[in-house]
């Protein structure tokens, strides 16, 4: 199925079918098969295997932040849903709540719990809760190759017998066990309960179940499962029951309050503890561990990467390689080939000749191939300058993601991020922001608190240049001198730390200490990295080309109507007086309102007329300037209009303030 067949929804709502696959299977009659499980156990890879639809898959927890759906390859009547990973249920985080909503609102045919074979105890702790929902289930123990490498063997028939459901071993990345999994789906059945809770808790569960059965029976989920989730304080189940029970909801609320009082406020922990114990007993019965004398190579590498002594040199080496690949190979070699050889050498002259000879209206020819031409400026910027840079960046990022390096980077970066009120987890959106700030703004959902998300989105918008812009900045300042690049880098880090420090002081709330899983280091699979790069590039181009064309059109209109010289005149005191740039640089800032990299490219185009100080000041200002229109829209989506407007109101004057201060300082100390 094509990528367009995927739809991502935070909340399931009956919608008009919009894709080919969903036309044949309208949601009202769909049979949903839900993939559920812990973060980073391979649900999304399995989803790809079962549907052909590719979603962003990474070797770090929290990649899937929304429910994704697509038609199953093996049964066009079935709709497969990839849910965000749940660390545990009852739900607490946004992604857990999204999964819980899917469980409550979908017409579920069956659940496929995807578990990590080498961590059976944790998998079965979740099974202990899912089993209570009374929905047909299959358990796929994924990554069983990694379990085998660690000497872990699971007695699958015994486990299947104890749970009363099909249990399979899979390696989703290699497609192993997937056919068997598909074959087992018709045999899915509601599992046997793993435990009976302690006396008083069990009585409370029975009472809550009775109320739910009487007042708000769920069409697919068992009342007992809902009762356990409700007593455990699941916010989504609470809302659902409140809405469906109506006036009599107080009965249930009183019951939970009494149960919580009896448990001295630790009811959710008690419930979770009993499930853990039940999972422990079952795990001990079905698992065998061979004694290993030494850790695996992957484990050793993983430890070196976060080692206090080796971690930083490895980080620097990794940054150097990425720079060589993106900054030198992408931004210099490939851009040279595309821009000079292909576009300026062949395509642009040929297209210009064709247009000039066949279009008789002069302004129309100019609109296509003139100074602000849709082809000569818009398409050339987008395809010749930006595409090679983002392609190499997304490829490099994909390799790092799949290798398992990025979660380890959170450990190395944690102390630095503590200075700005965040924890190391924020390094992931920040690094992705070096590729595309818009995409990174969306990825802030992996952060655990609204405060962390707000600070990170602000810093992304202010001081993180996207790869397109980074390429332009490095290309321009690299041509000036190494000192120029260094001043720009230090300015960005200084602004990031200072503004982050101030934001953390001003925005109320507590910093959350980092607790994170470090998935095994793995050798990335080229095909998976290429697919992921392709998916991201498609997303990026769909976003970037229309904006580049719109930006060029606006520049063309401003030029033709004579407004551009007017804007240049109005902006002169600020641009020439305060920043010390040539008056024409105003045009670059107008372009920068559409995309920062578009603006930076505008400055790049006039590089030969700028002094070293002007180049540095111009690049510092345009980097801090508001991000592109698309990421502004994403900010509005994630944080609301008010917050987004407030951020822009801070960022734009701040960019000019810092640029001007650097103009004064550099003129005084750097010549």
């Amino acid at each position: 199925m094509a990528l367009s067949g995927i739809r991502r929804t935070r909340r399931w709502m009956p919608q008009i079918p919009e894709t080919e696959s969903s036309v044949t299977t309208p949601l009202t009659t769909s049979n949903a098969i839900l993939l559920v499980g812990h973060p980073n156990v391979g649900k999304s890879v399995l989803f790809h295997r079962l549907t052909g639809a590719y979603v962003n898959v990474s070797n770090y927890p929290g990649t899937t932040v929304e429910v994704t759906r697509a038609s199953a390859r093996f049964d066009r009547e079935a709709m497969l849903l990839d849910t965000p990973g749940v660390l545990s249920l009852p739900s607490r985080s946004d992604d857990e709540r999204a999964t819980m909503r899917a469980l409550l609102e979908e017409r579920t045919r069956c659940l496929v719990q995807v578990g990590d074979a080498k961590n059976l105890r944790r998998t079965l702790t979740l099974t202990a809760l899912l089993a209570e929902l009374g929905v047909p289930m299959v358990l796929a123990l994924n990554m069983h190759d990694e379990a085998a490498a660690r000497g872990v063997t699971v007695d699958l028939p015994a486990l299947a017998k104890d749970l009363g459901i099909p249990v399979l071993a899979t390696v989703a990345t290699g497609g192993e066990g997937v056919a068997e999994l598909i074959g087992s789906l018709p045999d899915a059945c509601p599992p046997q309960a793993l435990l009976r809770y302690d006396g008083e808790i069990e009585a409370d569960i029975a009472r809550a179940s009775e109320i739910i059965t009487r007042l708000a029976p769920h069409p697919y989920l068992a009342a007992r499962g809902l009762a356990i989730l409700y007593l455990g304080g699941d916010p989504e189940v609470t809302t659902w029951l409140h809405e469906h029970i109506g006036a009599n909801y107080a009965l249930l609320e009183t019951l939970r309050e009494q149960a919580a009082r009896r448990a001295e406020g630790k009811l959710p922990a008690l419930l979770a503890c009993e499930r853990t114990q039940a999972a422990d007993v079952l795990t001990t019965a079905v698992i065998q561990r061979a004694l290993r004398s030494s850790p695996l190579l992957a484990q050793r590498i993983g430890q070196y990467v976060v080692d206090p002594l080796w971690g930083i040199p490895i980080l620097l080496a990794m940054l150097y390689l990425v720079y060589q690949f993106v900054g030198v190979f992408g931004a210099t070699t490939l851009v040279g080939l595309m821009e000079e050889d292909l576009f300026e050498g062949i395509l642009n002259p040929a297209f210009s000749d064709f247009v000039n000879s066949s279009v008789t209206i002069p302004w129309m020819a100019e609109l296509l191939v003139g100074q602000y031409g849709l082809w000569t400026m818009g398409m050339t910027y987008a395809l010749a300058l930006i595409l090679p840079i983002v392609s190499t960046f997304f490829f490099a990022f994909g390799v790092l993601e799949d290798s398992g390096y990025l979660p380890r980077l959170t450990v190395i970066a944690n102390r630095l991020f503590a200075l700005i009120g965040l924890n190391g987890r924020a390094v992931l959106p920040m690094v992705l922001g070096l590729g595309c700030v818009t995409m990174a703004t969306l990825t802030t959902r992996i952060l655990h608190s609204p405060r962390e998300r707000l600070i990170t989105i602000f810093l992304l918008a202010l001081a993180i240049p996207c790869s397109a812009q980074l390429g332009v900045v490095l290309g321009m300042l690299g041509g000036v001198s190494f000192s120029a690049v260094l001043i720009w880098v230090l300015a960005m880090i200084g602004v990031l730390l200072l503004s982050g420090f101030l934001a953390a002081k001003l925005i109320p709330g507590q910093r959350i200490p980092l607790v994170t899983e470090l998935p095994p280091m793995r050798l990335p699979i080229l095909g998976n990295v290429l697919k992921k790069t392709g998916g991201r590039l498609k997303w990026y181009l769909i976003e970037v080309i229309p904006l580049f064309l719109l930006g060029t059109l606006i520049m063309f209109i401003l030029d033709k109507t004579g407004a551009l010289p007017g804007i240049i005149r109005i902006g002169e005191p600020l641009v020439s007086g305060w920043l010390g740039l040539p008056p024409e640089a105003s045009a670059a800032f107008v372009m920068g309102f559409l995309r920062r990299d578009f603006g930076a490219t505008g400055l790049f185009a006039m590089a030969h007329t700028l002094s070293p100080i002007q180049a540095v000041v111009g690049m510092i200002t345009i980097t801090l300037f508001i991000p592109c229109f698309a990421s502004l829209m994403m900010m509005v989506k994630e944080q609301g209009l008010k917050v987004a407007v407030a951020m822009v109101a801070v960022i734009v004057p701040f960019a000019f303030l810092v640029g001007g201060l650097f103009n004064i300082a550099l003129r005084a100390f750097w010549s």
Partner: protein
Amino acid sequence: MSPKHEARLPLAFIPPGKEVRLAAFGDEIDALQREQLTAYGLAEGRPLKVLQQRPMTVILADEVELALEHAVARHIWVEKA
């Protein structure tokens, strides 16, 4: 919960390479964090191996590596395996 036994030590103080058993979570760890740690497989009585202590505490619990800030590891009490 404060340490009631002399042999109990905070996880953050255990040298790398040692295998220990989780004894208790301190009161400083709030209910939500306790649930999160339990979900990661850290429960009372579970064995774990300390892999390193800097820049963060890194442990191996079953076959899962977890990194914890010292602010958390200081309040997890462990005893001899």
